[in-house]
């Protein structure tokens, strides 16, 4: 594709990935979450595949998107099993508080880890579909 699109993609890719992380992190209390964040991250890589080519996008991703699906499912499963350590039913949310200097106590819990799993699964599924369709 054109030089303009390639140059714009170099600036837009980090921006889109940052926005997807922002959506992932605040998803527990506000609109957003793992699903939308994953879609935005997949769109970022799809844009890269359009601007350069599919092989370049695969090289940028480093891992096969199908492996991302498996890793995401395992992360989501692990976040559910944490509750067993506290002798509570599967997938009960477990929370801990970490004090960050200047911000105060920040709640960290297993729902975020579950969202991270969803994020990885969505990125993997979308990129498997998009990249194999674009390769034809």
């Amino acid at each position, binding site marked *: *594709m054109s030089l303009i*699109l390639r140059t714009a993609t170099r600036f*837009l890719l980090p*921006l*889109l990935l940052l*926005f997807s992380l922002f*959506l992932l992190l605040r998803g527990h209390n*506000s*609109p*957003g979450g793992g699903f*939308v964040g994953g879609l*935005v991250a997949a*769109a970022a890589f*799809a*844009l890269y595949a*359009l*601007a350069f080519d599919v092989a370049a996008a695969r090289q940028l991703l480093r891992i096969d998107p199908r492996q991302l699906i498996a890793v995401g499912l395992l992360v989501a499963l692990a976040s559910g099993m944490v509750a067993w350590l506290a002798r509570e039913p599967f997938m009960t949310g477990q929370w801990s508080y970490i004090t960050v200097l200047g911000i105060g106590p920040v709640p960290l819990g297993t729902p975020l880890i579950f969202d991270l799993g969803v994020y990885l699964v969505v990125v993997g599924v979308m990129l498997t579909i998009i990249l194999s369709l674009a390769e034809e």
Partner: protein
Amino acid sequence: MILERLTAVFVPTHLALAMLIIALFLAFARLLRGPTLPDRVVALDLVSTLAVGMMAAYAVMTNQPVFLDVAILLALIAFLGTVAFALYVGKGRIP
């Protein structure tokens, strides 16, 4: 206070939304009629840009900053479809 909110928020946002809706109808007419494919693609791009504007106006109208995030997201993503269309038009796969 109420009068101030009326002149500063209510009237401008409703005016902006009304103009955006008129523009949306015009863009949609071009989308339906557009003699060639590039005309339709540009009209589709315009529709998504107008949607960003409507979200921003609606965020001001309802005093909900959450809608602005949706507008940012759509503005970042929307041109992707146009680029994909341009790619296929350039390759000559769509007549």
